[in-house]
């Protein structure tokens, strides 16, 4: 019988610690599928963040080096500069890449570091218990925004990916969501392209993935994922934010992986 579903080689047979309904597991799977499809498992080095995905090294079956909170792209820069023929990716939350690590992201992008950043935007600080993130949308209640985020009190959500677009060395930036099969397929396409950009030595590539944190949003999974589609995308519209790859169309991804 033809096998139609299997665990990607680049993902270990481990149960994750993520909450039910969390987007991190889906995004891990997409990254692992891309690594498999590109045949780069043996030369890929990942840099997990401080954040809910801190234990990503227990799930990805590639070399992994832990970074301090916010510094993943700087650590990845160091690795890539020593081993330019390896594939280096970071996996970072919104607090990690868009608050404490803002300076590192902008400058790594501006230098055109040949690394791939996966930026998981779930609008809160998951790991530390649901505080406000730079990407928390107005009205969302977090443990540090009583009554919901108020722009005049707490500031407006920050669109880091849009900011990165002005950095000359950033060649490919796209915002996707993993809210339903159609969007998951698009997310995978974007992730694959962001790795391809690195393989082709073009410069800095980042995919922002809108994700749900049902636990800290205090929503059930269904409501949370609907909320990603209905509310988050208002402040963070999906689509290509910058593409200077010169690729005609994104490299093909396999059909039928909408799970």
């Amino acid at each position, binding site marked *: 019988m033809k096998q139609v579903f299997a665990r990607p080689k680049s993902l270990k047979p481990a149960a994750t610690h993520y909450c039910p309904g969390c987007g991190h597991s889906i995004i891990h799977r997409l990254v692992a599928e891309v690594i498999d499809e590109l045949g780069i498992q043996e030369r890929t080095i990942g840099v997990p963040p401080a954040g809910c995905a801190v234990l990503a090294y227990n799930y990805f079956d590639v070399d*992994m*080096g*832990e970074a301090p909170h916010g510094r993943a792209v700087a650590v990845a820069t160091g690795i890539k500069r020593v081993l330019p023929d390896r594939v280096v990716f970071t996996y970072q939350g919104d607090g990690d890449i868009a608050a404490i690590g803002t300076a590192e992201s902008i400058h790594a992008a501006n230098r055109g570091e040949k690394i791939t950043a996966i930026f998981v935007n779930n609008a809160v600080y998951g790991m530390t218990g649901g505080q406000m993130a730079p990407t928390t949308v107005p009205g969302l209640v977090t443990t540090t925004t009583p009554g919901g985020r108020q722009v005049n009190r707490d500031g407006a959500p920050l669109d880091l990916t849009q900011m990165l677009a002005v950095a000359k060395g950033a060649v490919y930036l796209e915002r996707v969501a993993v809210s339903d099969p159609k969007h998951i397929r698009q997310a995978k396409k974007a992730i694959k392209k962001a790795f391809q950009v690195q393989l082709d030595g073009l410069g800095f590539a980042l995919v922002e993935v809108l994700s749900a944190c049902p636990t800290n949003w205090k929503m059930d999974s269904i409501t949370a994922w609907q909320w990603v589609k209905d509310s988050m995308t208002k402040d963070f519209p999906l689509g290509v934010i910058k593409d200077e790859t010169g690729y005609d169309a994104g490299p093909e991804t396999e059909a039928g992986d909408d799970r």
Partner: protein
Amino acid sequence: MTKKLMRGSHVLGEAAVLAGCRYYFGYPITPQNEVPEYMSRRLLEVGGTFIQAESELASINMVIGAAMAGGRVMTSSSSPGISLKQEGISYLAGQELPAVIANMIRGGPGLGNIAPSQSDYFQATRGGGHGDYRCIVLAPASIQELADMTLQAFDLADKYRNPVMILGDGMMGQMMEPVTFPEPVDPAKLPEKDWVLDGAKDRPQRIILSMLLDPKILEAHNYKLVRKYDAVRENETAWEMTDCDDARLVVAAYGTAARIAGGAIRRVRQRGLKVGLFRPKTLWPFPAKPLEELSHRVRHILTFELCAGQMVEDVQLAVKGQAEVKLYGRPGGVIPTPEDVAHQISHYYYGAHLDEEGPGGGA
């Protein structure tokens, strides 16, 4: 081998390159800007990588990445910048990564000034960042020693998989002295590191981390570090004693202060005072044992530091109350002359009636 006349900051850079360092990540701060400037040119010549990072935070994290990938890597800065690097240095220690960090100390606290200082002694020798760890800390007192210690720093870092800090100051950076360099190390011929992240090809995945959530596992890791630090203490502690055989008073000083103290001691010796110099070459590990042994014979120790008094605590701990320990500390970047120090020595010497003692000066 020919002697060259070079300034300290260039010697630091050149010695690093000769040691096989091919990666430098830094951020400008006076008084060590000549180091990144030199490295930007020199690493280009040898096919290395220089990045002027956006901050000290970024640069130390690039150091972490380069070390993970197996490169011989270095950064340098001065006090405020070293403070910013501390989180990263703690990670280097926790993740057991080799790296060399030079601190050309300037006057503090805060922005302070750019004058030579030794006020970062505590920060360097007590870890500096968070957690239970130590950096190996080397304190050169001449340009030749700066070259030698820089080379040694990379070997120590690799041998113990631990960050090594070189402590200097603006005076050390600017000073020009003749220096002889050894043959260059070919980075390709360095012993292979069997722990680096270079892609899991024909081997299982490798993970480099410092987060160990289970207290028992973190405790075991910390004890492993303790054993490593014990071995460093045992094998690498270095110091120098000058004119200590007949001394009734010994000056304890390192780095630039030791140079000034040396001049002061020559002066007071001409005046018949029996004074020696105890100079730690490693600040961590501190040469406590030899100093303790010395304190059985010499009952008076004057600690001279370019700060309000930090190493003096290690001196006191070392001599275990067997000798009187006094401090001559000059904070704020003030550099006393050898004559100033000679005056302090004489004051102490005659005040304690050391001129009246019998041979050996034993109390």
